[in-house]
């Protein structure tokens, strides 16, 4: 049996909808291991939102869109350099055609750098913040 990319996504969808904690599938030439965890746990088959370099974890844009640091004009930014974040702390909003997507930090730690200017287009995978993990 050959697993296609669609199969893997279908498996991940099923995993997401069931209370499974771990799943391991092995076929000839293919191994898939999925572990359910908190938001910081890496998700299989999609790039992690947080990538680690030099001891710092980078929060990458999980989608293309307009990067907003605050909930609205004139409002305080969700996070500044030095802020402490938990995995579920909202660090920014990415807007895609009027859809506002709250982006969680995905990691616990301290914001060391804000990589993008407010209201700029960010690409999929673009570094947004660097975090020193707790």
């Amino acid at each position, binding site marked *: 049996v050959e697993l296609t990319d669609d199969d893997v996504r279908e498996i991940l969808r099923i995993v997401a909808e069931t209370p499974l904690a771990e799943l391991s599938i092995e076929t000839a030439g293919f191994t898939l291991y999925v572990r359910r965890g908190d938001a910081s746990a890496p998700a299989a088959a*999609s790039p992690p939102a947080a990538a680690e370099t030099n001891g710092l974890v980078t929060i990458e844009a999980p*989608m*293309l869109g*307009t990067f907003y640091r605050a909930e609205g004009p004139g409002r305080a930014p969700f996070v500044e350099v030095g802020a402490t974040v938990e995995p579920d702390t909202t660090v920014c909003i990415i807007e*895609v055609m009027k859809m506002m997507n709250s982006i969680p930090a995905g990691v616990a730690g301290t914001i060391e750098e804000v990589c993008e200017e407010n209201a700029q287009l960010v690409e999929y995978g673009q570094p947004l913040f660097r975090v020193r993990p707790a």
Partner: protein
Amino acid sequence: MRRVFVANRGEIALRIIRACRELGLETVIGTSEADRDSLPARGADRAVCIGPGPAAQSYLRADLVVQAALGTGCDAIHPGYGFLAESPQLARMAREHGLVFVGPPSEVMELTGDKLRAREEAAGAGLPVLRGREVDTAGAALALADELGYPVLVKAAGGGGGRGIKLARDGTELEAVVGLARSEAGAAFGDDRVYLEHFIAAARHVEVQIAADTSGATVHLGERDCSVQRRYQKVVEEAPAPALPEATRAALTEAGVALARAVGYRNLGTVEFVLDATTGEFFFLEVNCRIQVEHPVTEAVTGRDLVALQLRIAEGEPLGFSQDDVAFHGHAIECRLNAEDVTHDFRPTPGTLSRFSVPDLPGLRVDTHCHPGAVVPPYYDSLLAKLIAHGRDRDAAIDVLLQALEEIEVDGVATNRSLLTSVLEHPDFRGAEMTTGWLERAAV
């Protein structure tokens, strides 16, 4: 128009970038993560990554495409072919945000995207359509099939481009197929309507290239024959259609123009017909609201840049030429080199191209995004390159293509090169005796 967003990948993305450059337009391409290092990403003035590899999360997301186009200061979107090229939603969304959509109006796309409505429009415009109509139950299908005679084709109203078609040779098959076709069509196209059409056993696929400017001036740029197909997917295409009586050619191209006028078509499009090889009669099949994969054969014989024409029409420029100005020279043939394993049911063969080089031959044009070291991702269609030969006649074009296929070097992934060679060498192909069922009978 100053900056064009290229909402596609592969060879057509490069083709659009080239046309833009010739018109002095800047380009921004939206790539998936898998195509970040691709030639189109490097060839555009700017590349933005719009999402992960799977097309459903990147190239098929109209919202991301429009957002990316707006965020990069583009004023137009060229959708290429496939992906969102015939998405009325993208066309509408683009226009709502002040972007030029390089294609027909969304209303025309909606009409022609509904293959049943398109049939009615064609019949209304005086075009011959195949006998058939919508059926909603197996019982209705069986009754209609008795009237039409077997075999019959079951087609999805939301299908097109060779997708959503099933053949039923008798009542038992038809009963089995109709329910399945309806549920598949519902799942694939979000529209479970299906219709039956009379099946022509010896059929040729002939299509007419049309162009209409914003004032409604409409011309045709001749026809193409795309009868060499496998599972309703084109493999070899050519212009002009060989062995076609001049009266039929004239009637076909007139029919194409008549339908374009009837539906208020704008920009470039293709009206597809099926031609009964036995009787010489032709019937309307569908309208394609996009640049076709096989457009280079028309470019070769007309000497016109069709992608540039799309962009100029989208900008509001008049056609600038009349039907009488359209002249045809020689014969052009295109074959599609795909990354697929012909020995294993044509399964796609993604991988890394360890070697890729195409020969430089007089009369040969190669449209490709491939290069040594390029990765063929598993997410998209398997087209590696289009080889297009233009010669003074059909035999000359065939000879150039055969030489090109012999000299092309591709290593790292399996390709259909041997199949293309055997098609072009086949006496039936030389004799222009291909029908849409020929390839699967003769060469596969």
